[in-house]
């Protein structure tokens, strides 16, 4: 790995969000491929996730790294779009995900981390925020032509909203149009199976693996 990419990786892991954009610009000036830069930052986020799971990192560190990633990504965005327009004519995202925390639930720390991880992995994420009514998930999914609807619930009193979401999709005859991905502390794979959700993610990195699976993408290669 070149010196500059090594530095970029370290900055993302250390969550130095103010310093990342300049280093990304320098990498571009050095003619390093955009994809390689993105991959470097994504791999760094993978390390951050592992540190979080090991209890070495906490919310503070995780958020700073996620913001560092975002700051770098912003710099790359025009380049990525340019490139995507040339190569595919449409956009190179792995898939579109409409994401929110269900109604009456305002927990969003975990949701935001999952969103960062999905963005880092190459998904296009539409964040609906917290306390999102079921209708709103579906409306937005229709509007942006989403592939996946992702719902987060942290309370036993709100977790059944994920079930209701699936019911509502059925009622509207839209169940087959979207994959439903759910997550949050009280949920489980078993619960997801019971309510007929397409996927459940234990944590942010699991969420990426599952979202890729839902899009028919195997680890490491696209379609």
């Amino acid at each position, binding site marked *: 790995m070149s010196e500059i990419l090594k530095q970029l990786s370290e900055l993302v892991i250390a969550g130095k969000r103010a310093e990342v954009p300049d280093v990304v610009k320098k990498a571009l000036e050095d003619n390093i491929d955009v994809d390689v830069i993105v991959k470097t930052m994504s791999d760094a986020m993978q390390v951050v996730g592992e540190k979080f799971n090991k*209890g070495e990192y*906490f919310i*503070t560190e995780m958020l700073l790294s996620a913001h560092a990633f975002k700051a770098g990504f912003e710099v790359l965005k025009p380049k990525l779009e340019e490139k995507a327009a040339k190569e595919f004519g449409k956009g190179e995202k792995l898939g579109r995900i409409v994401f929110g925390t269900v*109604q009456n*639930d*305002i927990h969003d720390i975990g949701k935001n981390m999952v969103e960062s991880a999905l963005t880092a992995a190459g998904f296009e994420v539409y964040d609906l925020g917290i306390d999102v009514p079921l209708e709103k998930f579906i409306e937005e999914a229709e509007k942006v032509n989403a592939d996946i609807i992702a719902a987060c619930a942290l309370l036993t*009193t709100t977790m059944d909203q994920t079930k209701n979401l699936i019911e509502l999709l059925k009622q509207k005859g839209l169940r087959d149009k979207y994959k439903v991905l759910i997550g949050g502390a009280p949920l489980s794979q078993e619960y997801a199976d019971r309510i007929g959700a397409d996927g459940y993610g234990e944590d942010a990195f699991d969420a990426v693996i599952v979202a890729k699976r839902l899009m028919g993408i195997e680890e490491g290669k696209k379609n």
Partner: protein
Amino acid sequence: MNSKEVVLEAFKLGVPERLPVTPWFGGGMWIVYNTNDSWEKWPESAEKMANTYISINEKVQSDIIFCGSGMNNFPVAALGGNLKYMGVSAPPDIAPPFMVKNEEDINQLYAKLESGALDEDRIVTAIRDATRLVVDRVGDEVLVCMTAFGPFTYSGQFMGIENLMMNLAENPELVHKLLEFSTKFHMEYYRPLIEDGVLKEQMVVITDPMAAPGLISKLNYQKFALPYQKKLVDHYHSEGSVIWLHMCNNWEPDNRYELLPETGAEFFLVDPKFNLGLAKREIGDKICLGGNVDQINVLNAGTPEDVAKNARKCIEQAAKGGGYVLSAGCDVPPTVPFENIQTLIKIGKSTKYKDDGEVILNE
């Protein structure tokens, strides 16, 4: 010994006649839901709230009454925070948060506090007055408290939680200033009750969920949460109150539990994710422990037999020698069946101690 005496004896790490027990910490959501009330209407009058706390407790028979449970955000709203009601699935919260960005914003909060915003607020007044009434009517028999968040969690409500978390690293001075404010804010919320001696030999609850393991590091807990919690504990101790402290999650990694006695609180509520037996061995001689009956999988989703099993396990792990209160490990969901609550209470009240601290488990 009456309810209050058994709890206070356990808090002193002594051996009460029987095991102290409360089905919940809080119970606000359960009460509002089970009296077919709503969070919008519930604080209508202090009289109504006090009557409900007392009549529910006649039914439930908890050793502690938690006034103001589920209402920790009302004082924040009194300073201008936007209250968001969410039916009975959760207590009202502040959304969006205040988003304090600089010292000037903190000074504005001070200005509101000093202008008497809390005292003028109808709901804050109702909570305080309900607490007064409950203490007045049953405070010799039952331990009574008023609940509130701790300084770290209130700071999250004032700054936005993610901003608070990032500022721990990026702007620690500002965070300390906000924590100072939140500590003052807590004291102001309780001030009229303290001044009138209402909470003398009663309890103050400090619940600081945002300062829990998994959210912040041990070092950050030491720097940003513990000193301010301790400040509150010292303040209320000097006024003759006892302190119930709660933070969720597992305190075992990094031996973080060793910091809990440093707060000076009499009592710490052990979350179901934290091993009660370990807590008892490591810090049980320094701080009274309670919990850790699983409020979600057992109290809410289990049968009375499951509750009995879980309660007996907790008793085995922590009751010996006193210094233990049987309780749910965190605030209970509104849908917990009454039979499960009854089962827990029955087990607590029928578990007696011998003089040497041995537990007489009745079958």
